[in-house]
């Protein structure tokens, strides 16, 4: 509906949603020069309200929140403001939670151990519409798509392509999982950086749109452990 305000001077406007005050203030002070932190929230409901008021470019969102988890924020905000972008981050990455946040619509996922420069970089990339995959997320996604589609996928997707990663996408994900940067991947696979981006975005789209039963079941199985 509403488009986020045009980015002033290239600094993305960011709202921090995290239940740890210390972490928020740490991020705010570290990100200072490269990112404009316009607001902070520590729970689902206040976060949704604040984001609705401020309309930031990017919401930096903790996967684990007391009032329902990060994905609840995304689902709520996306109803009215589908253009706001989310970058998920967490300290402990239980795969099913991460995948849930991504499926809800986050444009990327990084761990809290990320360096400040990388975090600022990731925020900028998400603000520019790119997807940000940490090596861990790449591993989770490969894992989730690893199993061949099952016969008991009762609800096959409208577009069966959504259920499967292409060979190229797999290659890209593997390299991300090995810690390659997009630039290195481009060189390794003899493709352009933009192509790498588009592969990653396409993986993200499949992850979000696929109604594949397998993904749900994968998550459910992980939860059982």
């Amino acid at each position, binding site marked *: 509906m509403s488009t986020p305000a045009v980015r002033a001077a290239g600094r993305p406007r960011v709202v921090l949603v995290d239940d740890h005050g210390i972490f928020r203030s740490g991020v705010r002070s570290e990100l200072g020069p490269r990112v404009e932190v316009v607001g902070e929230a520590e729970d689902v409901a206040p976060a949704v309200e604040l984001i609705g008021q401020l309309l930031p470019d990017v919401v930096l969102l903790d996967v684990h929140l007391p009032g329902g988890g990060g994905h609840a924020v995304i689902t709520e905000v996306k109803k009215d403001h589908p253009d706001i972008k989310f970058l998920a981050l967490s300290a*402990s990455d*239980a*795969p099913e939670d991460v995948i849930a946040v991504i499926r809800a619509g986050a444009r990327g996922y990084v761990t809290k*151990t990320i360096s400040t420069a990388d975090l600022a970089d990731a925020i900028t990339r998400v603000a520019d519409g790119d997807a940000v995959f940490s*090596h*861990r997320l*790449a*591993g*989770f996604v*490969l*894992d*989730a798509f*690893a*199993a*061949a589609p*099952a*016969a*008991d996928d009762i609800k096959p997707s409208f577009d069966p392509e959504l259920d499967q990663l292409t060979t190229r996408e797999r290659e890209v994900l*593997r390299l991300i*999982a*090995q*810690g*390659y940067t997009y630039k290195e991947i481009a060189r390794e696979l003899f493709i352009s950086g933009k192509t790498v981006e588009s592969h990653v975005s396409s993986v993200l789209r499949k992850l979000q749109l696929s109604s594949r039963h397998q993904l749900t079941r*994968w998550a459910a*199985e*992980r939860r*059982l*452990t």
Partner: protein
Amino acid sequence: MQEPSEQPWPPFRFQDRPEQPAGAHRHGPHSWQGPGYRDDAHEWASHWGHRARRWWGRGDGQPLRRSAEDRLAGGVAAGLAAWRGFSPNTVRIVLAVLAFISSGWAVPFYFLGWLLIPVRGEEGTIASKARHDSRGVALALALGSLLGTFLFLASAFNDGAIGVYGWPQVFSLAFLTLIWRNAPDDERASLRRLVQPLESLGGSGTAARRGTRLRLTGAAVLLATGLGWLLSLHGGTHILAPLSGFLLVAAGIVLLFGPWWLRIARDLVIERQARARAEERADIAARVHDSVLQTLALIQRRAEDPQAVIQLARAQERELRSWLFEGRAPGDAGVSSVAEGVRQIQRDVEALHGVPVEIVTVGDCSLDEHLNALLGAAREATVNAAKWSGAAVISVFAEVEPDKVNIAVRDRGKGFDPDTVPGDRKGVAESIRGRMSRHGGEATVQSAPGEGTKVTLTMPRQPGQGQPGQGQPASGRPRPAEPGTGDSGTGDSGTAAKPRPAEGKRR
């Protein structure tokens, strides 16, 4: 006879103790009217424990202590049982029988034990507190003598049945008074539980009181009818009549005491659960302390050495993660699958060489000798990178595919020219390549000076290998065989699926 570690006390003091009829019985003449002395009764109790053990000859090393976990009243029976190695219920039954045989004398001795034996894990006895409670002593004496007077009067009218069982209870009453006034709250709670039916009579809440009254009236009617029936049948020839008399009496007793028994049983269960929860909390606290807090303390001390801090934080993070999400106790190093093997490599290399290792695993399967060789080669490659590359971080990526397992070890360090490898490193590369090819796998090494190094290892999977799960913390049970799902990747994997060791512990 006296412990060297304990304060020796003069013998006259020992003999002067009034609250030690048990000792008095065993030791012969002791005077009971000693002057007020203020000595630690628990010392006496442990001394008494030592003597008792010497007489019985088979101590279990633990002094006699009352049990806090398993107590109906004071935990004396359970304490005795633990001390002597019997079952608590056996001891309770023996005590009950003793109470009957001894015409009630076992009861005051029970309370005496309650007074004199400390609870396990604590030092002080109730008696040591009670001795300072002069009002309590006075009250105990008063109540005891009151009951004594009553019994004396009663025995004048009665032929003695009450008196025989009643006299010992003069002491019981006195001891109980002291216990009640001086016991810690939890023990008082168990006393209160014992007298609950009486309490509920005077309890608040009209509904509850009316219920109790109704119950008591019903029980009284049933008891009276039953007893009357039984008494009226002197040598009755009927078999049915006494039987129904008994039934009525039994029903009366159940009606009277049933709710009380139920409540005691329920309270015991609740108390035990609460204790279990408290122990669990303590266990978690201990673990967190052993690992997290210790590490945090170390980090604070070594704050000026960033490398060490990072290493500590990473090691701690991994340990905590494996405890929380995989139910693995710290230090447990059983390896039975590829993903576990890779994590093991990560742990060892980080610990030994201080270089962070980032791992990502996709899928998992159980190990065989070929995959062990693969892990060995991967370890070699990782150690190599840690030693030579100078890279800040090494990444290891393992992917289990239906027909093969790939492991890629990569660093962004110095790199080298594969054509001009120094001799010592050539040998290592050979050990990686040689090991892989001996088991039917492949190894490629890509490197260039300044470009970092990447070692790619590929090992074909043998048919029939199990696939325990899709990811690192796979579910601990074997997957249900779902015909036609192709869920596990290989067509035949369902047959030989080897479940991974149970990771049953919840987070």
